[in-house]
């Protein structure tokens, strides 16, 4: 089940909006697609991120995958637990598997994100 209070992207990321910040992670669909995550390369706190450019890198058993920044902004916090426990992304993608907190440059960008219904349709889970 997709959490209804989150926003989503077509690149299979989720965002939890809290004021002018967003917690970012990858969706359950994405973690299943990647398989067991074995390493996560996190962005640096203070790093500027640009929409659709690489923000983090995840290695699963079969692939290294770039995670795109879903919004423009600045990284204000990272989940450094993932360095030692990358499996959190598989076990709890919407909770302990969060990747970073971003301070948003422009709140209006959020209008481009998908809600849970639209994202469910995208991944074929709308029933």
């Amino acid at each position, binding site marked *: 089940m997709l959490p209804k209070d989150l926003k989503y992207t077509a690149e299979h990321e989720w965002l939890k909006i809290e004021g002018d910040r967003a917690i970012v992670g990858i969706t359950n669909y994405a973690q299943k697609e990647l398989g*067991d995550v074995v390493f996560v390369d996190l962005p640096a706190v203070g790093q500027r991120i640009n929409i659709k450019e690489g923000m983090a890198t995840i290695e*699963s058993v*079969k*692939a*290294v*995958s*770039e995670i795109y920044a879903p919004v423009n902004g600045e990284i204000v916090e990272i989940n450094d637990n993932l360095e030692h426990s990358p499996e959190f992304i598989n076990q709890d993608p919407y909770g302990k598997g969060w990747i970073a907190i971003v301070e948003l440059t422009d709140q209006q960008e959020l209008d481009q994100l998908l809600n849970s219904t639209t994202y469910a349709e995208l991944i074929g889970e709308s029933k």
Partner: protein
Amino acid sequence: MIWRLIPYRVADPAWNMAVDEALFRSYLEENTPPVLRFYGWSKPTISIGYFQDTVAEINLARLRELDYGLVRRTTGGRAVLHDCELTYAVIGGVRSGLPLGLMPSYLYISHALIEAFSELEIIAKLHQGMPQGKIKSGACFDAPSWYELMVAGKKLVGSAQYRQGENFLQHGSILLDFDAAALTKVLNLSSIEASEYAAILQRKVTSFADLGVFTTLERMITTICLAFQKLYQIEFEISDLTSGEYQQAQELMELKYATDNWNLIRGNKESQLQSFGGRIFA
């Protein structure tokens, strides 16, 4: 569907990886159709996975003694000794009609290789499970994962991907021969561990030579291309790098793949790095 076939060349490790990334970037910029590239290595080379800790896992002094090359891949996975093998790279994505998703894209390529190998009288099957438990070793070939090609329960081809969205670069090593001891002696293992691990690898890995199949590289490449053509109606246009791709590959080689900064430090930012003299592994 039109694909591009980059002619087989033997080149040094940094150049090989730089060309693959240059072609991948070219594909992202929609300057090329999907690419199939075959290549060889100017000397035996250890390639390590994107996230691997080179200094911890590879015996660099031994590597130097043996005059082996070393390069870090952009793709995932673990250490591979490129020696008696045919290496391939496939670059493509959903926009060119390749399947959506990681596993379907592996499956797509694996099916073509199975078809090709059957023409060479090797009956390969897909492994349909993930490695059990945590990754225990630095070597790629000791644990088959989804859709790896197996013959009689042993791995014949190792592969790994790098993905940006629904575009991917897949590296693969088709083993013509396999010497487990040659690999384990350049891993950071004691001599007892190395010989035990070599024995394990020897039980888990096979090669064309093990299977008694000896063919030319030219025939193998042709057979693989024909298999893609038969299964997916792909027509290959043979072309070398464009001048833009060549220039990009030059830059990537000089600034990334031939540098200790990429080959030794990436993924191990805090390690006590000794100086290995810049480009000695290029």
